[in-house]
């Protein structure tokens, strides 16, 4: 791994060089907020952005994605035989992605890349993408990445980590993919011996700026059923304000649940997968009318138990959350995962009580 120095004017010109080989995606300001968007020719990513509302997970995992198509024309030889649509997975680069958002892909990968089954759409898109991350020096008041297994300088799922250093970036080139992109952009200036230390120094400063945290140390040792059954102590009261919209799940970088829907247009059949949300009653409704998670208490419990307990037990690799804070900021009724995480972590089944933090 090496550290290079990228002057900011060199950054801009380098991006133009990349365009022939990569589709560039970066943060741009929209009406009110920033969003990750494909960058038009000449358009620069706005690297001073406040974190985006919707996470960049859509780049790998679009909200609606065609997965199969078939002919519905009786005269065709392959009438009614579903096939994979032709898609090109041309190289993409996500520029300026936050380390927390990048880390989310490693968490989600555990779902889509298993021993038995591999999701080809997710994996191909993921493999075609180079992640150029921007270390986060100004955390939001709702950021709790450093206690959620990620961090403002976390580079575990990045190809390049950029640290803003005034008129230039210090860039850690972490993988082969990263080297390839840096070479294509013409970024090769050696950053000097001090650079690594400089980045570590900035990292420490950034970590100490994070005010908000969650306690997760006892989650793994808690009994799954005890937490599930803590209806009076936790779930009933916390679920009261929930309106069962899908905001938390749709803005979340680590929520991966989907629905599969068929549509017909003319003489073609399409099978499409759409993001779905465990907050919706329809998510689990049986055709018989029976619903195993029929109340909003059930559904809210599912979301938080999944992130903070089922995932923890299933993969033994921490919580299914990177601490980006989007759900905390955007929940229209202020349901706060930090508060619930701390409640679960501190739950005492003997007394049926838990510590309530104002976060």
């Amino acid at each position, binding site marked *: 791994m090496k550290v290079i120095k990228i002057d900011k004017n060199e950054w801009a010109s380098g991006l133009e060089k990349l365009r022939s080989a990569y589709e560039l995606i970066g943060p741009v300001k929209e009406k009110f907020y920033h969003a990750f968007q494909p960058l038009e020719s000449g358009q620069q990513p706005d690297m001073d952005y406040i974190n985006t509302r919707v996470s960049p997970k859509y780049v790998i995992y*679009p*909200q*609606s*994605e*065609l997965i199969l198509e078939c002919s519905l024309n009786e005269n065709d030889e392959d009438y009614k035989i579903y096939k994979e649509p032709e898609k090109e997975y041309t190289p993409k680069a996500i520029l300026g992605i936050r380390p927390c958002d990048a880390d989310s892909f490693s968490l989600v990968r555990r779902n889509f890349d298993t021993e038995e089954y591999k999701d080809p759409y997710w994996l191909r898109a993921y493999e075609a993408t180079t992640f150029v991350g921007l270390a986060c020096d100004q955390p939001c008041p709702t950021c709790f990445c450093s206690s959620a297994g990620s961090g403002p300088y976390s580079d575990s799922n990045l190809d390049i980590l950029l640290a803003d250093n005034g008129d230039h970036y210090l860039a850690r080139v972490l993988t082969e993919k990263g080297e390839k992109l840096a070479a294509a952009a013409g970024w090769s200036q050696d950053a000097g011996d001090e650079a690594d230390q400089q980045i570590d120094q900035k990292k420490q400063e950034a970590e100490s700026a994070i005010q908000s945290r969650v306690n997760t140390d006892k989650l793994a040792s808690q009994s799954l059923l005890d937490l599930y059954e803590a209806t009076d102590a936790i779930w009933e009261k916390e679920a009261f304000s929930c309106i069962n919209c899908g905001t938390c799940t749709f803005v979340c970088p680590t929520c991966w649940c989907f629905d599969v829907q068929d*549509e017909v*247009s*003319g003489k*073609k059949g*399409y099978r*499409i997968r759409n993001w779905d949300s465990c907050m919706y009653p329809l998510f689990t409704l049986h055709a018989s009318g029976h619903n195993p998670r029929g109340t909003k208490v059930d559904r809210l419990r599912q979301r938080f138990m999944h992130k903070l307990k089922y995932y923890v037990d299933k993969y033994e690799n921490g919580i299914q959350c990177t601490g980006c804070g989007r759900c905390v900021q955007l929940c229209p009724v202020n349901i706060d995962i930090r508060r619930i995480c701390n409640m679960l972590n501190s739950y005492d089944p003997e007394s049926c009580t838990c510590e309530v933090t104002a976060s």
Partner: protein
Amino acid sequence: MKNLLEHMGVEPERLHFSWISSAESTKFVDVATKVTESVKSLESKEKKFVKTKPKVA
């Protein structure tokens, strides 16, 4: 009904209401012809509320 559709850019010519009995075949033809003509005569050629292949990734 027409008002909000018109408000979001669907011309009133694109929406017709008629009472037609199942016995009134000529009236049905007349109305259908009238509707088609009134839509064709519109200045705007944009298709509105016409979904073809779903726009998905």
